[in-house]
């Protein structure tokens, strides 16, 4: 059990579901010299009390109460997506030192712009929980990839995702999980929903990485969109002059894969990320050119820990706040991919005889 301390930053958590239990609390336990959990809020009092009890924190079912608590300096928003914008804005208005919002940080461009305006007005820095953008493997690649952003012509982003509990259960003992409903991917509306949900729930993690290699990211065309069995998405995109494939498949397998590639005529980057939830170290980045390969990582900590360390630096004024405009661009890019791809799959998925229904999952 941890004790609140005036020497470390107090964290208040909005929403105490699996992400809080399996990601943020285990990560914070690795950096106790910087943070302590001061208060946990969840609409379910039993969950709030139970999760807070794990770390010796106070608990509440009221967001207002948490935000009014002066022992809370940092707020992390882990509630369902539809509450993110409202809660981030409230945390800014409460004068907290910094905010971490789980992805996506809003569900529309209008919401995102509202958040940006409030962040600017109040001076409260915000980061979004896109952990791979903080991963030491990605940052090392960024430092060494030279002109690859200008020269890459092909982007590949592939995730093979086993059920989340397989990893959550190694990270913690989860006390509650959202229910997954069986769905039939051959129904056009279900297929469209799967693609949109898959992009905004899973692919969104690394769409900022894709965008980094697509300077003309607003010039986006969906060339094809398919839903693999049992669920997921396979998108071929043209973004500016870049050829992009985004693939994700939910399986019941034990074998995870999470790869990002950017390939040009003379240089190529491949990043192999570790699975979500578990503290399995950083990604490994390989840059190949001229018959040689440079390998960076794996480093001893992953993007979750890196994002928290960055948050601490923000709160202490040691790091420059992220450009909120970039966060808005990341969000609007993801929304555009999700909307156009789901529309494409709705238009091309012909209703067929129902097969065995399948479950959909996201991280």
């Amino acid at each position, binding site marked *: 059990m941890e004790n609140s301390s005036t020497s470390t930053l107090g964290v208040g958590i909005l929403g105490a579901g699996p992400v809080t239990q399996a990601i943020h609390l285990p990560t914070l336990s690795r950096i106790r010299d910087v943070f302590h959990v001061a208060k946990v809020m969840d609409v379910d009092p039993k969950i709030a009390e139970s999760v807070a009890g794990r770390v010796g924190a106070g608990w509440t079912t009221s967001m207002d109460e948490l935000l009014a608590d002066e022992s809370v300096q940092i707020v992390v928003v882990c509630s369902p997506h539809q509450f993110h914008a409202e809660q981030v804005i409230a945390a800014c208005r409460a004068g907290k030192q910094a905010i971490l919002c789980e992805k996506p940080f809003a569900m529309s461009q209008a919401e995102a712009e509202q958040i940006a305006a409030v962040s600017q007005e109040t001076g409260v820095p915000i980061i979004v929980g896109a952990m791979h953008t903080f991963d030491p493997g990605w940052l090392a690649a960024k430092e060494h990839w030279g002109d690859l952003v200008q020269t890459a012509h092909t982007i590949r982003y592939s995730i093979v995702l086993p059920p989340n509990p397989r990893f959550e259960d190694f990270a913690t003992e989860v006390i509650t999980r959202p229910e997954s409903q069986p769905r039939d991917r051959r129904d056009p509306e279900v297929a469209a929903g799967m693609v949109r949900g898959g992009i905004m729930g899973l692919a969104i993690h690394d769409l900022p990485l894709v965008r980094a290699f697509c300077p003309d990211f607003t010039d986006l065309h969906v060339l094809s969109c*398919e839903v693999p069995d049992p669920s997921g998405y396979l998108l*071929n995109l043209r973004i500016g002059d870049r050829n992009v494939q985004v693939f994700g498949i939910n399986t019941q397998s034990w074998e995870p894969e999470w790869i990002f590639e950017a390939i040009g005529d003379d240089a190529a980057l491949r990043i192999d990320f570790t699975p979500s939830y578990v503290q399995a170290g950083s990604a490994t980045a390989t840059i190949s050119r001229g018959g040689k390969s440079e390998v960076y990582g794996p480093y001893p900590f992953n993007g979750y820990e890196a994002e928290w360390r960055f948050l601490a630096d923000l709160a202490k004024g040691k790091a420059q706040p992220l450009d909120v405009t970039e966060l808005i661009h990341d969000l609007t890019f993801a929304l555009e991919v999700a909307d156009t791809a789901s529309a494409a799959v709705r238009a091309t998925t012909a209703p067929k005889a129902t097969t065995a229904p399948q479950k959909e999952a996201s991280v």
Partner: protein
Amino acid sequence: MTQQLTVTSSPEADAKGDVHQVVASLPVSLHLSDAEASALVAIAGTPGWTESALGAIASGARGLMIIEPCAADVASLKKRADTLGVPVVIDTEWAHNPAVAAAAPHFASLDDENSLLEARVNARVGADLEQVLLAQLALIRAAVGPVASLTYARRNRHGYDALATLVSGARASLAAILTDAIPGSAALRMIKPKTAVTLTLPGAGTAAPGKVTVSGPEGATLLPTLWETSHRAAWRRLHTLADAGQACEDLAAFADDAALAVER
């Protein structure tokens, strides 16, 4: 006892198919000859290759190796070869790699109308995309099954992305990426809810082994590695067929693949 068969190869065929290296590695089965009427003839698949093949048969060849053929009308050649029992083997970059045959039964166990096959090729900058696709289609045919239909999502100087349906009804995503940053290679993968098969292949210029990984609830198994180039495996097959006086179906399969590959 193995019958040694003479081999003739043009410089073009040798350059594309490493014929001399293959013969050197099969010295009991094959022997290079300058004679006009060798038993086996290697022909580069450049335009006009079918005429060259018909000429070789007329000169008494017992078997032909066509190396990386371009699309062509093969009807006359097929008819003549079938009539005379002359095997015409098509040698493309990956299809004969022994790892392909090792992977085939495992792909077959997953291949149904709910399956998605991912196929990717990394090829050199400037490669002829039609030839790349022909080699990829031959690989898919050998490892999984024939492609029945194909539509490009994108095709440009950097490669292509295509969507296809296999004869089994499985969907397939075919990609080619042109780059000099990483070695040429090919990969096939089929992922099912609990099981998967992955095949990765080096270019035909090396005997580095293709790798077949079969995974399921019990774990993943890497099948035994076979250190043989696809060219050598193709020649072993041609020797066996010619020795038996047995024609083969490579030309028919090639014609079907070529019909898909020709730019529409």
